[in-house]
Structures are given as structure tokens and as C-alpha cells.
């Protein structure tokens, strides 16, 4: 431990403190959700090339059976989350907007739903290359919301020296508690996953980061840490967006990922606790990813909780099960700071979806607000975790000066955490401006 770290607070500079509403669900154990009559399984639930269907309509499948295969290295297969029969392969709505090809699976309601498609295996008997392959075979993607194929990140990068595996259990988004519950209830799986990841990457040090509003989870993890000190657990200040990749690295290690770079550039490989727990649970059984823990919360639902949900469960079914209230009116996938509001309930729970937050129409945060001119109060400047100048960027966005924004004001470093919009007393939709500006800039750079 270097001397500087004694003076370092366990957090990053700036950020905001929204009310976290985690008490709605953080004491509720994970419960299993019923199987929906039909599951919607998009072939692309991950970044990279979509998977290719291995099944045809009318074909019966068993729970856990591969139904689509990866197309290339940056791609993952898909497994049947339930025993049933393939209804069709067709275009369905997605939360993101464009329609996408998906396998529709009619679930046999009478089936035992035991996972037959599995085989025991010792993950530590595998070589690093075999671990990468085995993880790809599970169809695993980043469980924190990024949806990036996990095995790609487990392959030790060429030409870069890694020294630390950072395990992200911050869960800084308000309402979400699935990582919290997973750390508490699946601690052995998490630690197994960490050890597998260390082996795959050839690393000797792992650091688990947990915000200090989940000290019970931190305790649970610390009780099972190996005595050799290779894995350590750290409490970070509860502050949004503490869980963002760059913020965690700064808080834990005092390193800054260079602009436009990756954690690997500062010697870090980073995984979400949910992802490593899935590795710990799936690899010893050679099983595919067929379900995940989703926090369903918000005052718009009658029975908020942490549910183990089969991948592909339609939101409409999920909300029926938890009792959506009639006055519920905004359904957010992920957390409320960065999540996306859905236009249709006929979209499925996908592999990377960590939460569904349902807000009521009389929720104070949803009250219509008049957009006023920027008064340059600099609250956004004080909030931006990337130390950008959202005030000036916002004024430039109004004038469509996108090129200037990117060149002089580091627009492309914005990761859309939403702190600036959250604090703006003039209600300027700054993040939305920046999304548009970034999209236009990317288009122009590609052209």
C-alpha cells in the first residue's frame, strides 16, 4: 500500500446523491418468478454479432439446451430458458426501438423445468483458453447492463499488462438491489467466479468494490475471502455514479482510464458481481445462462422484490406477477438514472437487464417541468464525474456546434450518467442533448 492511498478517500470527485429507494427491496430475499406461457428470445441480447438459430418452429427443446450459436468470437450462444416447443422465429419489439429477430418459445406448463442439459465439471482443471471457451459456451454477457460478451474480457489482452481484477459490486443506481442480494445469497458462487476469472486472466489480485450502503453484503463477502490476501473487499462511498467503470477504478486504485481508452490501459480487468456469480454458478455445471436476478421496484408495483427471472419473460407477464398498479405510468429498464423507459410491455427481459423500475404518474420526479434558460449556476460542472463542462456543452448543443463540442470540450468522454440533468435547476435535458451530439459526431467520424 503506497503512502498516497492513506489520504485518498474511497470515492471519486463530483457526483450526486439521489435518494436511493433501496429499502423497498434490499431486505427481500431473491424469489423465483413463474414461467410465462411464452418466452421471447432475441438472437441479439449482447454486443457484437447476433447468434444464429439452431432450432426450427415446431421443435421441442429442453430447459438449458442451446437454441442459437455464437457467430464469431464477439458473440454468444443462447439457451432455452424453459422446456417447451419453438413457436416461431420472427421479428419482435425491443426496448431499444428497432425490431429484432427472436425465437418464440411456448413453455410446457406441465414440465418439471429441471435443468437436464448440464454436466459437472471442475473449472480449475481448465486452461485459461478453455475457461474463455467455456464462458462463451454459457452465453454470458455483462450482467450490469453493458451486455458485452464476458468471455471476450476474460481473454488476457495482447500487449497490455494487467495487474488487478476489479469486481464491481457498487450498484449505485437508485432502486436496484439485485447485486446486493446476489452478494449476500450467492457469496460462494461469486468467490468461485472471481477465482476462475483470476485464473483465466493470469492475475493474482482481485479487489471487490461495494458501496457503503450495503455493509451486510461486504461482511458476507469478507467472511469467505481466502486468507492469502489475494482477494480483498473495499467499502466505497455511496454516491452516484460510483459504479461506473472509471469511477470505481479511480476510487479503488487512484488511476484514471485515459480518454477514449479501456480499463486494460491502466492494468485493470473489470467485471460486475452478477457476471462473476454467474460464472461461479454455471461453469461447474457446464450450464447455459437461462435466468438472472432482476430487481422489480418502484411505487408503481404492489410486490417489489428481487426475482430470479427466466430470460425472455415478457415485461407484461412480469408486471402482472408483481402487481403493477393502475396509476403506474413509466416503466424503466435498468436504473432510473441511466435506464430506458419502454414504449411497449411486449418486450422481453434480456440477459443484461438488472432492474425494472415502475414509477407512478403522481411521482414527484415525473412532474412536468418547464425548461428555463441556463443561468450558469455551475451545478452541472460540480456534478460531472468526468469533469466536463456540461453548462458550456449545453449552450453549444443548442447552437448545434457539435464539432466544437467534441474537439474542445471533450464531448465524447461523456458516458451519459445523467448527473448534469439531475441537478439542473433550469430542467435543461443536458444528457439528451449530449446523446444527440455524440450520435451526430460518431456518424460524421464514420463518414
Amino acid at each position: 500500500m503506497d503512502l498516497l492511498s492513506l489520504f485518498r478517500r474511497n470515492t471519486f470527485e463530483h457526483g450526486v446523491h439521489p435518494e436511493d429507494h433501496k429499502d423497498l427491496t434490499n431486505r427481500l430475499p431473491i424469489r423465483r418468478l413463474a414461467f410465462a406461457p411464452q418466452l421471447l428470445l432475441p438472437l441479439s441480447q449482447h454486443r457484437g454479432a447476433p447468434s444464429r438459430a439452431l432450432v426450427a418452429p415446431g421443435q421441442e427443446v429442453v430447459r438449458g439446451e442451446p437454441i442459437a450459436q455464437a457467430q464469431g468470437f464477439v458473440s454468444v450462444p443462447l439457451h432455452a430458458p424453459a422446456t417447451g416447443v419453438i413457436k416461431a422465429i420472427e421479428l419482435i419489439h425491443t426496448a431499444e426501438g428497432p425490431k429484432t429477430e427472436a425465437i418464440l418459445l411456448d413453455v410446457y406448463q406441465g414440465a418439471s423445468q429441471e435443468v437436464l442439459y448440464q454436466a459437472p465439471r471442475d473449472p480449475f482443471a481448465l486452461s485459461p483458453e478453455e475457461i474463455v471457451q467455456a464462458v462463451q459456451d454459457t452465453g454470458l454477457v455483462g450482467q450490469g447492463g453493458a451486455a458485452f460478451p464476458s468471455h471476450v474480457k476474460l481473454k488476457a489482452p495482447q500487449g497490455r499488462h494487467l495487474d488487478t481484477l476489479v469486481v464491481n459490486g457498487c450498484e449505485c443506481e437508485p432502486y436496484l438491489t439485485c447485486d446486493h442480494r446476489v452478494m449476500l445469497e450467492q457469496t460462494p458462487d461469486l468467490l468461485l467466479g472471481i477465482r476462475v476469472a483470476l485464473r483465466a486472466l493470469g492475475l493474482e489480485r482481485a479487489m471487490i468494490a461495494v458501496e457503503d450502503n450495503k455493509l451486510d453484503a461486504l461482511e458476507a463477502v469478507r467472511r469467505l475471502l481466502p486468507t492469502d490476501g489475494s482477494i480483498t473487499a473495499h467499502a466505497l462511498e455511496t454516491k452516484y455514479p460510483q459504479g461506473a467503470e472509471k469511477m470505481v477504478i479511480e476510487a479503488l486504485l487512484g488511476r484514471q482510464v485515459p480518454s477514449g481508452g479501456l480499463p486494460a490501459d491502466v492494468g485493470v480487468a473489470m467485471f460486475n458481481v452478477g457476471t462473476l456469480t454467474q460464472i461461479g454458478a454455471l461453469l461447474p455445471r457446464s450450464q447455459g445462462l437461462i435466468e438472472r436476478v432482476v430487481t422489480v421496484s418502484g411505487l408503481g408495483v404492489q410486490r417489489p422484490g428481487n426475482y430470479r427471472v427466466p430470460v425472455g419473460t415478457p415485461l407484461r407477464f412480469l408486471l402482472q406477477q408483481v402487481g403493477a398498479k393502475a396509476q403506474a405510468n413509466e416503466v424503466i429498464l435498468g436504473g432510473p438514472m441511466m435506464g430506458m423507459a419502454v414504449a411497449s410491455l411486449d418486450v422481453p427481459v434480456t440477459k443484461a437487464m438488472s432492474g425494472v423500475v415502475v414509477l407512478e404518474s403522481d411521482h414527484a420526479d415525473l412532474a412536468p417541468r418547464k425548461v428555463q434558460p441556463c443561468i450558469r449556476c455551475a451545478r452541472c460542472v460540480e456534478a460531472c464525474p468526468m469533469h466536463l463542462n456540461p453548462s458550456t456543452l449545453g449552450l453549444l448543443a443548442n447552437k448545434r456546434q457539435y464539432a466544437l463540442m467534441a474537439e474542445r470540450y471533450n464531448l465524447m468522454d461523456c458516458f451519459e450518467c445523467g448527473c448534469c440533468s439531475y441537478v439542473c435547476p433550469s430542467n435543461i435535458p443536458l444528457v439528451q442533448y449530449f446523446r444527440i451530439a455524440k450520435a451526430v459526431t460518431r456518424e460524421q467520424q464514420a463518414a
Partner: protein
Amino acid sequence: MHSQDTHLRIELRTSPHLKQPLTVEQIMRNVVYALLPVCAWSVYAFGFSALLLILVTTSAALLTEHLTCRLSGRPSTVGNWSVTITGMLLALTLPPGFPLWMGAVAAFVGVALGKSLFGGLGHNVMNPALVGRAFVQAAFPVAITTWTPVFAPGRFLETIPTTLTAPFMEPPAVAAWSAAHALDGFTGATPLALQKFQHIGSDGLGLLLGATAGSAGETSALIILLCGLYLAARRMMDWRIPLGVLAGAVLTSLPFWLLDPAIYPSPLFMLLSGGLMLGAVFMASDMVASPVTPLGVWLYGLFIGAIAIVIRLFAALPEGVMYAILLGNAVSPLIASVTQPRVYGARSKKEVRG
């Protein structure tokens, strides 16, 4: 299977879906609250005339904003309290016996030329109250330097003779009235003018509490400071700006005072006299016309403090806070552009090329 409870009326919004419950109106309203004690002291010290002046400039400012909004076809923005602040602040920077019609002119010019012409709230380059004051300083040089005694007996029963000057008329001479109403030898000059032109010092306690001649609202440094602390504690004012201005004033006046305390006034006198405190706390800190960058905020404050002292010491004017702040406002965009914050993970130019 489509039961009643999943027929939701769904609304779409972009993230973030949560919002900190603080609005521009709330910030501006709190600045108005913070100005009320300053106004109350002004009325207590200078009487009925000060009250009339505050009411007239504030109403004129509100009316101007409303009319200019109408003219430019925008919804009226008088409801966001910002123009109320302009009106109140303007009165506080004027001599208490300033003719009311001239006060109205100052408010009109300040709001119409200093704010509405640029596009209203958020678009003005300079502090509108000071634009109005600068205009009348040039237009009515005598009236704006006509000071009347503090705590004049009967100040709640009668107005200062100049107050009710008919529009477009010259105000009457007030020296005889002042002499008759002063508690002790009144010279018709502010502590700053006394110091500058006659090298007569003033009592520090009197300056702190506000028992001196001066503009309607600038005299009590203590009350202004307390009101500023309220705003800073509620995070509705950037405390770094007033601190920067005061520090700039001290750092600039200190070497001269050390050099020759007989000619140059002490830094403490500089801090407590004239409009420095009012300017530092309520005008330099105007969000719209100050930089947003952390380093820029300090530079801007120090710049204003230093310029104010340089004007006080070396220019023909006894007071320089107004011009210092207007200059500060003018260079604020420049300061902001050269003090952009260091972005997280920023690479040096060499690294980018390599």
C-alpha cells in the same frame, strides 16, 4: 391473460428519470429573501426615501421585463424572481435620496438594455443592475454623488428633498437640508471620498454596522455578510466569488498600506467601506455573468477585487466596485475559456500524438 392491471398508460421520457427538486425560481426567491434584511437596514438607516426608492426601482424593473417580454413575443418571465433581484439590488446601490424618476430610468435601462436586449435571463453579459447604475452615473453625475446623512431625525416622516424631484427636472440642492438633519458634522461625503480626497479616516465599527453615509444598501457590511452566509449555506451562491473579491481587495491594498499607511487606507477599511461587500456578495456572484469553471471563479473574484482597489487608489473616482464588476463580467467568458477543467483521463497533447 391481459388483466386490467397491466393496461398502463405508459409515458416515455429520457433518462435520468429522477430529478433533484431545486428550480431556478427557488434559487432566485432565496436571493430575494437574503436581500430583505439589507433592504430593511437601508430603510431603517435612511428612512422613507430609501423605501420609496426600493419600491420604485423594483416595480420599474418588473414592468420593463414584462413589457419587453411582450414586445418580443415571449411569455412574461417576471415570475422567476430574477428581475426582482435586479430591481432591489439597483436601489441598494443608489444614494438614498436619489430622485425616484431617475431610479426608474436606471431600472428601465438596466433591464431593457442590460438584460432583455440580450435575450433575457441567462443571456445577459453583465449584471443588469450595474448596467442601470452605470447609465445613471454617466447621465446624472450630480444626483448620484449627492449623499445624505444616516439616521436623520424625522426620516420616517418626511422624504429627502431630492427624492420627489419631478421627472426630467434637476433635483434641488440638498446641502442645507443635510446640514440641518445630520447628527454631527456632516460633510456630504462618503467615508471613501473622505479618505481619498481629504485623508480623513473613518471608524471601523461604524463601517461594519452601517452607521455612515453611502448608497442605500451598501453601508452595513455585517448584515450583507450574514445574508451572504445564508445563501452560501443553502448552496444558492458560489461562496468562492465573494471570498475571491475580498481576497483580491486585501491583497491589492495591503502592499500600499504597508508602504505608507498615512496615504493609503488599510485593507480592513477597504473591505468595509463603499460597495465592496454588497458588490462581492450580491453582484459579482451573479451566476449568469460569472464563469462556471472552478479555477475561473477564483480568478474572476480576485480580478474584481484587485480592479476595485486600483480604481479606488489611482482613478479620479472614490469608488470602483461597480466598474470592477462590469469589467469582471466582460472578461468572464474569456476567463472561462482559458480555465476549462481538466477532464478525467485527459491525455497530454504529446500522448495523443504519440
